[in-house]
């Protein structure tokens, strides 16, 4: 049955339709037809094969804007559409696709863009349904114009877009959109983060703004996401800012459609602060790790589960590289007891626990480790684990054992020794107290070893002992406590020697001499100190007595104005008084103990040869010897001091010579005075001679008669004058000689002389006098010494003086005897007379300057008193000896009256001597 459908636009228009076959069908048809005609939606049909529209309701006509249904029926769906659909597909192709799908599946609902007759495009929802009727299959289409809807949607989108835009703009995080690898959009925050403005960035390739470190990662993620492959939801990367710095960001991105095309939109969160903190912590941790690594000790960290969480390299070296993660028990096999000690740590104890345990090293060997363990707590105070450091003390322990063994041995040795000794360790605890010390102090080892009561043995109140001060290295305190009583020993480092009085030992106290020294181990580490003591009370008493005596002697010696020194038989000085120090320039400490030649330099003034024979002579010849005249002492600084005096032997109780004492004094002043005197005398002599020459010569002229003959009386007078002047001249000569003798500057020029001849010459001069007094001359010359080495002039002076004295003081008919002989090894000369003799009480002064014995004045009022002095000085100065024997006849039997002068000189004769002047 054909059905007539009415068009929407004209309900009156009828459409030829097929008749309805049945009545129910007719009903249906009518219903459909009214629906068809009245529906506001565009309803139409299309039939294969070309799918042209076969019907269309008035709504359809109105929708497409065709003139009428007829026009409408000339179209296919795609012709009432633009050439391309929004997704880019050709309308004809897509339409056929849709149609096919509807035919296959029975219906198809999809969006479509149609085009009206006037060319306007509009969005539509299309519902295609397959209809079967009378064996015919065709499609029923319902098209709904959704343009308005779309408009609203757009509007909504726009307004929500607006909202989003605002949101995006004010978002703290950076937002970016990348399409085709180019940045399409960035928000304010992103621009700020990146340090760029919009212009700089937009349109540019995003890779350029990624820091090199992150380029690979970011590019990879971008590609993966676009492809639809698995990509990271969020990841960390670094952006490259405009100023070249980098900024850490957390990127999370997703695919969106941007302007119709797929694009990546992402959020970049600034995580630079967090990253910085992270890095700091990392470096801190790293530092700590490095430190921990550098410590040679083993350092291990365990957690609450008692598993090792960290070990430094030494730890790994010991336990093996795989120690981290292992359980602690594993390494404590067989050491349960020790392991238990560590338990308190995990309970929160804050103590450092020390344990020693044997553990197996990774090479299998068992080693003794010393552990120091501490808890690790978090900020809240909860125990998170423990940290321990360990040291391998296997060798140390072995050494200790050995030491202990040897200590025992040493102790045994010490105990048998008589030396009082005690030892303290670094903590001032007594570790050893010898038997001898027990006896000395009355304190037993049992009482004191292990304590710090060493002071009790010596002092009433507590104070450090020398050993204590040494341990403390308080060297300045040593000088405080033992001021003036201590000495640092040179042989041993850091060792001192003290002698001190301990009033609290014994009843009256004791003098102890003790040495303190540090004890070191092989490495040089101080492990203790020891003191070795000696009771020197008795010794000390004796010393004090000696010192007392010594002080007395010293006081005496020091108060003497002379320099005194004494030496032993070998010439080593044992005594040196203050004056000696002054004159020599050496301190007694420097002189005592050394040979006198080291500090005393006596030389001859004339030739600066040493002049020390007198010392040795005193010792060997057992007599007092005098320093040679004009001995000079060379002081330490080189200054020469003229000295004089003597040396005498020192004998012990047995009478044996054990040394020599020498006394001398500075004669500079005396010499100067003398020198002044003699110089004066020299000059005076010269001055005196001048007028004397005049007197002499004028007298001579007168007496010669050249100026007229003298009457006998005149002759007599003149003669008197002449004689007087002659005497004056002699005196002046004598004075001059004396001055030379004093100065020791006369020369001695020995030559082989015949003594007899010199005597003869002298006697010649005295002939008148001898004949007048009728004196008997006797001479005797031993043949082998008749010729001797002597200065003829000096020898002449000697004989002149002695003989003239003899002649002068021997009364008429007396005898004068000259003997030349030997005495032991010496040459002996004697001149004896039977004259008046020298009074006993004046014998000592004979030979002193200008001394004349009382009994001479009547015989010769004009004598100079210099004659014997001159002889004595000459003989002494030429190496000989001079003495006399005399008797005035008052005490001795008569007939023995007279004087004999003796001279000895060495066989070698007079010693040659250089000088300044010859004696007259």
């Amino acid at each position: 049955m054909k059905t007539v459908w009415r068009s929407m636009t004209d309900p009156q228009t009828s459409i030829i339709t097929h008749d309805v076959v049945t009545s129910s069908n007719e009903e249906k048809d009518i219903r459909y037809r009214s629906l068809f005609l009245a529906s506001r939606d565009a309803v139409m049909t299309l039939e294969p094969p070309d799918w042209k529209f076969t019907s269309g309701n008035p709504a359809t006509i109105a929708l497409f804007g065709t003139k009428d249904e007829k026009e409408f029926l000339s179209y296919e769906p795609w012709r009432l559409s633009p050439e391309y659909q929004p997704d880019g597909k050709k309308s004809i192709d897509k339409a056929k696709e849709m149609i096919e799908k509807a035919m296959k599946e029975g219906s198809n609902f999809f969006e479509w863009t149609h085009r009206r007759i006037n060319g306007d495009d509009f969005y539509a929802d299309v519902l295609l349904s397959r209809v079967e009727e009378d064996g015919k299959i065709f499609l029923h289409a319902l098209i709904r114009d959704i343009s308005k809807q779309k408009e609203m949607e757009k509007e909504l989108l726009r307004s929500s877009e607006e909202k989003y835009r605002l949101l995006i703009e004010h978002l703290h995080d950076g937002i970016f959109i990348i399409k085709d690898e180019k940045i399409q959009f960035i928000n304010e925050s992103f621009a700020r983060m990146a340090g760029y403005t919009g212009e700089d960035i937009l349109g540019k390739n995003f890779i350029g703004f990624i820091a090199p470190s992150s380029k690979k990662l970011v590019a990879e993620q971008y590609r993966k996401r676009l492809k639809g492959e698995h990509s990271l939801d969020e990841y960390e990367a670094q952006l490259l800012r405009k100023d070249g710095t980098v900024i850490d960001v957390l990127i999370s991105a997703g695919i969106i459609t941007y302007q119709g095309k797929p694009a990546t939109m992402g959020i970049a969160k600034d995580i630079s602060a967090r990253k910085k903190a992270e890095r700091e912590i990392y470096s801190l941790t790293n530092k700590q790790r490095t430190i921990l690594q550098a410590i040679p000790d083993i350092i291990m960290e365990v957690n609450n589960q008692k598993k090792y969480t960290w070990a430094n390299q030494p730890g790994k070296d010991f336990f093996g590289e795989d120690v981290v993660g292992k359980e602690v028990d594993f390494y404590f096999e067989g050491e349960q007891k020790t392991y238990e000690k560590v338990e308190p740590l995990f309970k929160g104890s804050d103590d450092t626990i020390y344990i020693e345990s044997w553990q197996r090293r990774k090479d299998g060997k068992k080693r003794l480790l010393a552990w120091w363990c501490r808890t690790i707590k978090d900020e809240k105070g909860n125990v998170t684990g423990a940290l321990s450091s360990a040291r391998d003390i296997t060798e140390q322990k072995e050494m200790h054992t050995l030491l202990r063994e040897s200590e025992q041995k040493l102790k045994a040795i010490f105990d048998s020794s008589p030396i009082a000794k005690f030892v303290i360790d670094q903590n001032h605890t007594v570790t050893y107290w010898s038997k001898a010390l027990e006896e000395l102090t009355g304190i037993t080892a049992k009482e004191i070893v292990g304590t710090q009561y060493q002071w009790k043995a010596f002092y009433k109140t507590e104070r450090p002992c020398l050993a204590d001060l040494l341990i403390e290295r308080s060297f300045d305190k040593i000088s405080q406590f033992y001021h003036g009583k201590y000495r640092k020993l040179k042989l041993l480092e850091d060792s001192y020697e003290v002698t001190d009085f301990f009033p609290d030992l014994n009843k009256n106290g004791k003098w102890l001499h003790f040495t303190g020294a540090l004890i070191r181990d092989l490495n040089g580490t101080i492990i203790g100190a020891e003191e070795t003591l000696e009771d020197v009370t008795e010794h000390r008493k004796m010393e004090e007595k000696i010192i007392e005596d010594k002080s007395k002697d010293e006081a005496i010696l020091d108060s003497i104005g002379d320099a005194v020194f004494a030496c032993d038989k070998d010439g080593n000085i044992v005594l040196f008084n203050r004056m000696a120090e002054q004159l020599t320039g050496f301190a007694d400490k420097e002189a005592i103990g050394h040979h006198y030649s080291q500090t005393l330099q006596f030389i001859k003034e004339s030739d600066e040869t040493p002049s020390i024979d007198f010392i040795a002579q005193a010792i060997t010849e057992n007599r007092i010897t005098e320093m040679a005249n004009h001995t000079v002492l060379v002081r330490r600084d080189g200054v020469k001091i003229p000295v004089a005096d003597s040396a005498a032997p020192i004998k012990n109780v047995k009478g044996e010579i054990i040394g020599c004492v020498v006394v001398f004094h500075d004669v500079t002043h005396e010499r100067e005075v003398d020198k002044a005197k003699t110089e004066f005398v020299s000059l005076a002599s010269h001055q005196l001679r001048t007028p004397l020459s005049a007197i002499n010569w004028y007298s001579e002229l007168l007496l010669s008669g050249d100026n007229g003959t003298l009457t006998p009386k005149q002759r007599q007078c003149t003669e008197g004058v002449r004689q007087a002047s002659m005497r004056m001249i002699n005196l002046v000569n004598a004075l001059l000689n004396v001055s030379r003798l004093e100065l020791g500057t006369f020369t001695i020029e020995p030559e082989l002389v015949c003594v007899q001849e010199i005597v003869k010459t002298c006697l010649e001069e005295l002939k008148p006098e001898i004949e007048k007094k009728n004196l008997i001359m006797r001479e005797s010359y031993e043949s082998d010494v008749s010729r001797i080495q002597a200065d003829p002039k000096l020898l002449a002076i000697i004989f002149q003086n002695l003989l003239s004295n003899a002649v002068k003081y021997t009364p008429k008919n007396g005898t004068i005897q000259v003997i030349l002989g030997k005495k032991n090894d010496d040459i002996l000369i004697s001149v004896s007379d039977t004259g008046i003799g020298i009074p006993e009480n004046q014998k000592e002064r004979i030979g002193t300057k200008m001394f004349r014995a009382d009994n001479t004045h009547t015989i010769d009022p004009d004598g100079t008193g210099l004659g014997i002095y001159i002889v004595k000085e000459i003989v002494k100065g030429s190496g000989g000896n001079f003495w006399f024997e005399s008797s005035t006849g008052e005490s001795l039997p008569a007939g023995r009256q007279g004087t004999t002068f003796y001279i000895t000189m060495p066989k070698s004769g007079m010693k040659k001597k250089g000088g300044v002047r010859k004696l007259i």
Partner: protein
Amino acid sequence: MKKVLIIEDEQTLSAVLVDKFVKDGFEVFTAKDGREGLDMALKIHPDCILLDILMPVMDGITMLGLLRKDAWGKHAHVLMLTNLSSTEKEMTSHALGVEDYMIKTDWKLEDVVKKVREKIGVAYE
């Protein structure tokens, strides 16, 4: 006549020496110091010079040294006639060619004359 030069600062002594030598037949010249003596010696070339030591202006030893530098002076006969006992001066004069060092007070006048005659090789007239 032989010439003798007496170099002596002491007037009295000089006078008595002059007296003696004149009496003895010498031509006598005198000088009162070493300077004068030197000049005179070089001028008159005496046969003998009696030379004192201690004199003002120039002492005898200095004069002697200068004298010996002269061609004639080198060989002049000089006798030291002094009151100064000095080994040193004696040695120096000896080194300067003077053989005789005479102490005035030890010598008689006539012995001095004898010595001079000896020196210049003139026998007693």
